[in-house]
């Protein structure tokens, strides 16, 4: 499906897709060898997970609607919870607070089990 992520070159570079599920949207990152940070464990690079979570958070804001310009990140924090193996990663975000100027967005990424997230992110965006 067409998504705002198509307009973000870095999202295409990572190979991030979007799926609408029920009421929300999920981001999808298929595994590729180029995304690996630890060759022995074949684990995703921490930066890939961070970027994926930030894209997920940004998409959630864009999906919310009336943004006249792309929200700009003020800061982004990633908690690494588990090693992310050689399989598809999925992401979902919720807007924790939507202010007039600043939005606080929480994002989470998982692989085979949504109850066992591999990473979680917390971003503040200037609207």
């Amino acid at each position, binding site marked *: 499906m067409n998504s705002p992520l198509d307009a*973000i070159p870095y999202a295409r570079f990572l190979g991030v897709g979007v799926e609408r599920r029920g009421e929300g949207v999920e981001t999808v990152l298929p595994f590729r060898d180029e995304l690996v940070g630890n060759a022995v464990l074949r684990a995703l*690079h921490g930066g890939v997970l961070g970027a994926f979570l930030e894209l997920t958070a940004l998409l959630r804001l864009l999906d919310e609607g009336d943004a006249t310009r*792309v929200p700009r990140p003020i*800061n982004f*924090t990633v908690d690494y919870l588990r090693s992310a193996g050689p399989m598809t990663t999925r992401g979902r975000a919720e807007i924790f607070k939507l202010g007039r100027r600043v939005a606080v967005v929480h994002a989470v990424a998982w692989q085979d089990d949504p109850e066992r997230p591999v990473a979680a992110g917390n971003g503040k965006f200037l609207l």
Partner: protein
Amino acid sequence: MSESQEYVLAPLFGKAMVDLIAHTPHAKHLGMRVVETAPRTAVLVLPYRAEFVGDPRRRVVFGGAITTLLDHASGLAVACAMTELRAIATVDLRVDYLRAAVPDRDLYARAECYRTTKNVAFVRGVAYEEDPADSFASCLATFMLGPGNIGGAYARALEEHRKGGER
């Protein structure tokens, strides 16, 4: 030099004499390079590419690409603070986007592992185009140190360096 002898990667310190990125597929994929390593310190460069852009109208590199650069520099800084090779796992990473990175400019990251305890390493870093004092992003990162290192990227780089020396 004597002060740096205690660090396990000390033989590799300096102006990127060995390719410390070679065994990290994603860093290689991005085109990242090591500029310099020193005790507790790593400097990396990510040459600008249009594919890294997040906001095409402003041609500014996406925050996530900067996160990856800072994450990698931070991990390498931790390795440069180790007195023995150990597994290094990122616990968390916070990036502050201080301003937009200038389009078409190569992106540098400098990270310093300013404190290590028995099990935890603390890192701060900056990302910049030219001058670390005029950075466009800064980061704080925390790492857990594992009991051993099984065939990690830095162990392999060290091994290759040793082999090179024997030739």
